[in-house]
């Protein structure tokens, strides 16, 4: 906690947080060893998605909200279609439900490997980027890139393209793949299972700072499955409600000097979403192989060290590859690509698990299906208070490091969250003022 008083004061400045998607800023003041975060905000320009969605047709929501984030468009498409479908009383079942899980597996693999290897691993090994890292570890980077590509292959096949796929709609899909098309993915996915296992073993051997925190973990929880699209909102500190109760459990706070809306648990404060939360709340839903790999990697059934999120991302990648193989094996092409429904007025909620954490959408529609009101809570906005808490802990633990090393450690702490800053619609530039 309290660091011994030091006579000198220092100033460190990080003007642009690299290897995150989007932009934000952190200003820190250090006086006589006391650390104070004076600003932690997002200077990603506001784009006003909720505002301009009003007046658009319900069917526009998956295509438009995908553009909130180029890294996890499937998450936006999934949360929006499930919110709309809850209004129309559409229940996704059978092969269509399984295809939605499969395309989500693709996004998890692609996004997790991108983050773990291209954005996060260089911090552990002291490289500026994966490209610098490749100069010394080319085979490992190439292996990771191939694994990432296999995730993208799934999204490509079902969705049409990796970024902003075009095939997801309210009620299902425009077109479903044939069994044979999906089966062509199998040999690569079998290779990916080994590669993702290698990734777990590699990252488990990294040196981790001994930093733990008493997080309130929140994720979507399903009775039988590791969560993607369906389930209740559950935390390790007592939350257990249906998705429609979102606004009774969480509130959004507009932080001064920031374009970000931060979410907090009402009357309690910060919470943490993403791989560590999912893992710690749903360990028993992971496959036996993943549970065994976790034990071998030295993890318990819960994990409270944010730096170890890289290992959990790789474990979730193994899970997603296994799940993809299972889904493809079980797939029977459905008779039609969508289910019929009748448009009606009402309010709907959707919460699904983006790679970087839970993503909530709420819409209110008129009787023609035009959007009257929209609310979107991206994962990074939800974890933002938790990130700020972590930064304070890292500052207190490492304040004696030279400026450049401290700055890097702070950036590393932010990257633990795989923050998608443009997806926090409403992210890091670090300035440390030591007087």
């Amino acid at each position, binding site marked *: 906690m309290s660091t011994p008083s030091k006579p000198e004061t220092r100033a460190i400045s990080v003007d642009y947080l690299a290897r995150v998607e989007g932009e934000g800023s952190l200003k820190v003041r250090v006086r006589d060893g006391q650390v104070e975060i004076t600003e932690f905000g997002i200077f990603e320009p506001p784009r006003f998605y909720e505002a*301009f969605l009003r007046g658009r047709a319900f069917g526009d929501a998956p295509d438009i909200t995908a553009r909130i984030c180029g890294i996890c468009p499937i998450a936006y498409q999934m949360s929006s279609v499930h919110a709309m479908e809850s209004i129309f009383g559409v229940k996704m079942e059978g092969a269509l439900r399984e295809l939605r899980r499969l395309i989500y597996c693709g996004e998890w693999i692609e996004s997790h490997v991108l983050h773990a290897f291209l954005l996060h691993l260089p911090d552990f090994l002291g490289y500026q980027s994966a490209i610098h890292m490749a100069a010394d570890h080319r085979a490992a980077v190439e292996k990771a890139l191939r694994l990432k590509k296999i995730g993208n292959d799934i999204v490509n096949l079902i969705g049409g393209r990796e970024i902003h796929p075009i095939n997801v709609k309210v009620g299902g899909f425009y077109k479903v793949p044939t069994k044979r098309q999906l089966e062509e993915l199998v040999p690569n996915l079998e290779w990916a299972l080994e590669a993702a296992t290698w990734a777990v073993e590699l990252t488990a051997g990294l040196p981790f700072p001994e930093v733990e925190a008493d997080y309130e973990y929140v994720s979507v929880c399903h009775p039988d499955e590791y969560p993607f699209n369906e389930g209740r909102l559950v935390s390790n500190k007592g939350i257990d409600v249906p998705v429609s109760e979102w606004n009774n459990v969480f509130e959004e706070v507009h932080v001064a000097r920031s374009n970000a*809306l931060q979410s907090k648990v009402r009357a309690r404060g910060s919470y943490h979403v993403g791989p560590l939360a999912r893992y710690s709340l749903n360990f028993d839903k992971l496959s036996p192989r993943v549970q065994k790999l976790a034990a071998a990697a030295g993890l318990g059934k819960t994990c409270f060290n944010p730096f170890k999120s890289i290992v959990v991302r790789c474990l979730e990648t193994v899970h997603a590859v296994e799940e993809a193989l299972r889904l493809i094996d079980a797939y029977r092409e459905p008779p039609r690509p969508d289910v019929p429904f009748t448009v009606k007025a009402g309010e709907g909620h959707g919460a699904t698990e983006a790679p970087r954490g839970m993503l909530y959408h709420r819409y209110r529609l008129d009787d023609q299906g035009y959007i009257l009101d929209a609310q979107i809570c991206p994962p990074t906005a939800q974890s933002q208070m938790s990130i700020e808490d972590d930064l304070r802990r890292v500052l207190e633990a490492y304040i004696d490091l030279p400026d450049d090393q401290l700055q890097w450690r702070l950036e590393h702490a932010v990257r633990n969250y795989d923050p998608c800053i443009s997806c926090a619609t409403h992210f890091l530039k670090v300035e440390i003022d030591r007087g």
Partner: protein
Amino acid sequence: MAKPKLGVFKFASCDGCQLSLLDCEDELLTVAGAVQIAFFPEASREYVVGPYDLTLVEGSITTPHDLEAIKEVRAQSKFLVTIGACATAGGIQALRNWKDVAEFTSYVYAHPDYISTLDTSTPIADHVAVDFELRGCPINKWQLVELVNALLHGRKPNIPTYSVCVECKRRGTPCVMVAQGIPCLGPVTQAGCGALCPAYNRGCYGCFGPMETPNLAALGEWWRSMGVDDRTLVNALRSFNAYAQPFREASDVYAQQA
């Protein structure tokens, strides 16, 4: 010879277009070998000062800060290429251009006074000279590889400006408007996606923006004859390339009639 310096800059956007470079899994390390990645904060902490031989700009101009920043980026760039619908047309966030931004700000934020934003979202070319543009929401990564390759060899990038219809014919996709009665923006939209949507039994939604000299009036009448109401027509034209001139002007005409 020194390797050409690459800079990647971002304004208001989703990061998807610059992600396209990282999505070139098989080509990334080769490209990184051929150019010096001097500034690319999504991928690297390294910051090498300009000037840059090739600058890729993603995103649209929406804040007073960015209005100044783009001029500095231009001053540091030999060859400036805008990538994607935000940078080339203002993006989906240009929907504000028809609305009251003060109302938008108070709808989304509890403290509108903390928000610094312009009334409009505008393309990069409205503010500085642009040497080349890649369309799409998102861009096609093969067009990006072609662009980098062409510039490395000092030739013009081979990027077609004809319509999506040509790609449908080449792909062998039967016309979704004619064969299935699905309204499609393909006839007025620039190629580049590979005519993706029609191949998935849906109409093109115009994410590559207007082709050269599109006939919006003819397409609008065609849509109307298929029973599409004007509100739907206006919304279709006002999406990711809403503020591109042909789409903008046609949408204004139909909005008056709706």
